[in-house]
């Protein structure tokens, strides 16, 4: 599959657009369709496509397994930390209102939702890459 020049050229052109669309879905999720889950899947798909087309036969690892594992944990930690910050300001768990500034009462909600979606996106994309990686390794041994 990786030897076809048409597939390689098309993939080179498409991958930046897929990543850009993933970032758009991630950071524009409050205003249009989408959110962390979809964005994570799209970004992971772009990385997996790159690996599938260009590095099918190469034995070296594209991303170190430890890095991917760390990102799986980082995403869920961001989510939990946003929840715990609510405690520190005297609110409930995941109470975004405590993040608000004095002038805009909704800003805390926006910041909270943004951070939470970021955590979801990081966790989902790294879990998808992790599963793909495990499949790839399972085929080698």
């Amino acid at each position: 599959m990786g030897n076809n020049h048409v597939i390689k050229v098309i993939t080179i052109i498409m991958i930046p657009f897929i990543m850009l669309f993933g970032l758009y879905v991630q950071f524009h999720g409050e205003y249009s369709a989408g959110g962390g889950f979809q964005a994570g899947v799209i970004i992971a798909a772009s990385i997996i496509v790159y690996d599938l087309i260009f590095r099918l036969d190469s034995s070296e690892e594209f991303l170190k397994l430890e890095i991917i594992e760390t990102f799986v944990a980082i995403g869920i930690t961001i989510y939990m930390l946003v929840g715990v910050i609510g405690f520190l300001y005297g609110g409930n768990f995941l109470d975004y209102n405590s993040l608000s500034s004095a002038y805009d009462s909704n800003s805390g909600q926006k910041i909270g939702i943004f951070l939470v979606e970021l955590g979801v996106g990081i966790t989902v994309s790294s879990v998808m890459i992790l599963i793909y990686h495990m499949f790839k390794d399972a085929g080698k041994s």
Partner: protein
Amino acid sequence: MMLILIILATSVLFSKSLLSSIIAMSFYSMVCAIIFLLSDAVDVALTEAAVGAGISTLLFLKTLSLVNDQVDIARSRDIPSFMIFFILSILMVSFSFNFPEFGSISLTDQAKSTQYYLNQSMRDMGIPNVVTSILAGYRAFDTLGEVIVIFTAGISVLGILNRGKE
């Protein structure tokens, strides 16, 4: 649309090559996404397109590169499992008659909370997308559980497939 779905599902079942089955499944997800899009469920459509047509097709293709493409399917005549399948499908069709009418929110049990979310979301959150505000705002705790499920799935795959290495 439904006719296309039925044709695609049959072609997934009866095609000789696994590759064409995978492509037909991907196309099936895409048609599902279009149906969701036509029903104004944009977020669900995006999820179906990304997960169903995108990432699962990639994982299937990766798996296909590890196994043989041509598989002779043993067509077994298993009467009990066919009976179970038949009863379950009749049950599902009969349940589908109890669905609330398309587009009406007054029939559901959660009508009050639905109305509350739709009316108050902009004032509470200041975010135009009601789906995001419910998912990450009102129901953030449920979403945390969802993320933990994904996390656990990733860790489990790591644990199962990485076992032979050490």
